[in-house]
Each structure stands twice: as C-alpha cells, then as structure tokens.
C-alpha cells in the first residue's frame, strides 16, 4: 500500500492538486475548532465528491477485479508493482540516511527482477529481505519539514500539505510513468490503481461500521498511520 500507488499516478491530477493548494493557501483559513484540520470545510466537500467517485467508479471496478482474478494473479500484480516501487523506496531510505535499508531495497529490486521473474514473485521476502515502507512525504518529515494542514483530495485521498508535495515528487520518480507507448503506461497505472483499491476492500466495511463520523475516522486514522510510518513503526508514545 505504498502511498503514491493511491494515485494511479495521473500527472494532470497533481497539477490540479498543486493549483488547488495555491488557491487554498491564498484563501483565509477556516475558523474551526480542530487545530489538526484547519481546512475542514474544504476537505469535507472534497470527501463527499470522492465518496461519489468511489461508489460509482473505483469501488465497483475493484470488486469485479477482486472477484474475477484468482489469488495468484492478484498476488503477482501486487508483487509486480511492489517491485517497481522498491526503487523509489530505496532512494528515500538513502535520503533519510538509512543506507543499510537502502541496500536491502536495492537488493530486493535486483533479486525480484531476476529470480522473481520481473517482480511477479517476491522471492526477496522469502529470503528474509523485508520490504520497507518509505516515500518522499516521509523523507520530508525526517528532514524536519512541517506537515502543514490536513487535506482530503478526490481520488488520491487524505494527505497533508507535506504528503501532497511528496506525492507529486513521487509521480515523477515513478517508473510506470515512463513506460511507452502511452496506452501501455495508462493500462499499467489503471491496473495498479485497481489493485490497490481492491486491497482496501476488506477495510471498507470495518470503517463503515466502526465510524461515528466516517470523515473524522479516516482523517484520524491517516494522521496516526503517517506518524507511525515516519517513525518506522516505533513512534514515541503520546501522553494521554
């Protein structure tokens, strides 16, 4: 579930996103009581838009894929895109000064691309080389860049200002975006998007049933999850 997978990496989408960001920065902040969500009004309307897109487009397609594709096919698709993603994960490990991790990421890429037949099999994990969870948003956080306000985008979902920038940079570093011809690139990006959306299907019902307010539940889950990722699974305890 690497973060920028969410995207299906549509360049146009993030140009739009950046434009909206600038517009946001210029508009006066929402006078809301929650300091963790300064743009709540904007976010809630974007959330509503996304719910419609998801309900009528993304989710039905993901459900068909999930029902039709046999498990080995789904596993191979997940492995393949995971392997493509290991390159950027390795770069980010290195940018954060975790050179040992970066070596593992590179080793994974080499092993899975060869022995793992173009990444269709995750042989490296079997060998004990675990995939790391890194992206440019986390790198910025490690470098001390402030998160900025929380934002909810249609299609690409929840990300704060820092993660939105991280996502935009990540799409430029995404190997899939350089695949030619364009039709093949688009098919790959679409398949990846569907694969990721399908992997989130089991959590849909949980969120639907658990949340008193789905928007707030997703926001707070995102904030906790990102904090956990930035600290590589060992965040310092918050005082209760």
């Amino acid at each position, binding site marked *: 579930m690497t973060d920028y997978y969410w995207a299906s990496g549509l360049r146009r989408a993030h140009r739009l996103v950046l434009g909206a960001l600038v517009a946001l920065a210029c508009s006066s902040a929402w006078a809301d009581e*929650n300091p963790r969500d300064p743009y709540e009004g904007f976010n809630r309307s974007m959330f509503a838009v996304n719910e419609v897109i998801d309900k009528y487009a993304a989710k039905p397609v993901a459900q068909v894929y999930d029902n039709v594709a046999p498990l080995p096919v789904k596993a191979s698709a997940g492995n393949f895109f*995971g392997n493509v993603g290991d390159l950027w994960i390795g770069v980010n490990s290195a940018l954060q000064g975790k050179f040992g991790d970066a070596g593992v990421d590179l080793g994974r890429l080499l092993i899975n691309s060869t022995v793992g037949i173009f990444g269709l099999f995750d042989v490296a994990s079997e060998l004990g080389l675990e995939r790391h969870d890194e992206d440019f948003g986390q790198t910025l956080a490690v470098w001390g860049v402030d998160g900025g306000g929380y934002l909810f985008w249609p299609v690409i979902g929840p990300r704060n200002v820092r993660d939105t920038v991280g996502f935009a940079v990540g799409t430029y570093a995404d190997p899939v975006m350089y695949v030619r011809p364009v039709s093949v690139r688009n098919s790959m990006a679409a398949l990846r998007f569907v694969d990721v959306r399908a992997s989130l299907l089991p959590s849909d019902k949980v969120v639907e049933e*658990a949340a008193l307010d789905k928007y707030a539940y997703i926001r707070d889950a995102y904030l*906790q999850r990102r904090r956990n990722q930035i600290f590589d699974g060992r965040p310092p305890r918050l005082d209760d």
Partner: protein
Amino acid sequence: MMKKLIALFFAGFVASAACAQESPDVLVQRVTDDVLEIIRKDRDIQNGDTHKVIDLVDKKVLPHFNFTHMTALALGKDWRKATPQQQQQLTGEFKTLLVRTYANALTGYKNQRVVYKPLKMASADTDVLVRTEVLQPGSKPVQLDYSLEKLESGWKVYDVVVAGISLVTNYRDQFAQEVRNGGVDGLIASVAAKNKSLEANSKK
C-alpha cells in the same frame, strides 16, 4: 474422598496460578492461535456470520480486555467529568461497537499468517506492548500491536493498534465532537444509535 478434594483444589489452584503468571506475549499468542484455528474450521464465520463470530469473540477474547480503560482512553479528559453511571453506560455501548468491528475484521480473515515479535519486558513491568505482524500473499505485512496492563485478574488488553492506528484513540476526536454537541449523554445516545442501526442491518 478428602484426599481427592484436596488434590482437586490443589490442581485448580496451580492451574489458576499458572494462568495469572502467563506472560502477556504468551497470552496474546494463545488467544490469537485459538481464535484463528476456530475461524479456519468454521464455514459459517468465513461466510460472514456476524453473530457466530461475535459469540466467539465474547467467549474467547473479551475476558482478556479491559473495556473501562479503553473507553476512558477514547474519551480523554471528558472521562473524569462523566458520572460513574455515564461511564458504565458508555463503556457498555463502546464495547458493543468495538466487538462488532473486531469481529467483522476477523470474518475477512483468510490466507493470512500471524508472526509474533519478541517481547521487550522487565519482570516488574505492568504495562507492555506486544507486537505481532499479519502476513498475506502479495501485500506488505500489517503491524498489529496490543497494549496490555497487569491487573490483579491478570494481563488485560487496553488498546489494539493496527498499522499504527489505535482503534481506541481513533475515536477521540469523534467522541469530543459528540460531547461538545450533546454532552456525555449525547455521546452515549449516538453510540447506542450506531449499535442499533448495525444490529438492524445484520438482521436483514
């Protein structure tokens, strides 16, 4: 006769002492393995029989949870402002909601494998984090951690953390929002209403 009774009594005593001394990681592993074994064999649960899985969670998992602590954590500083009766009501409703959520996550269980991480703990510790990982083919492992505290009745779970997301503190803002709008009673009513609608849906 007397000898037998004493032997029985003694056996019972030893057994309960052994239970009380069971370390938190062993407890988590035993309960998890138990529950997953049952789910693996139960077709009804795999097909999404919510009531059956809730029964299972009630019997096997709940005795090891401290819901009062969980509810206090979710409510944050408003907890102390609530009357004991409100605390009790809210705990009951929150428990129902959490059990359903947890139970539903379990019915989605297939092809996964749980790995237990070594526990870092001193013998005097009364509050520990037990780390596990759920592995599934084609996806990254998911971190699944349990916070446990030592009570007189043994180790009790007071938080479950999935991929860094605490199922308990994730409610904090939502609870605070409800309390701002309608006080603690308003919050209790909202959670109760949520539970009712879930119950009604599952009957359909």
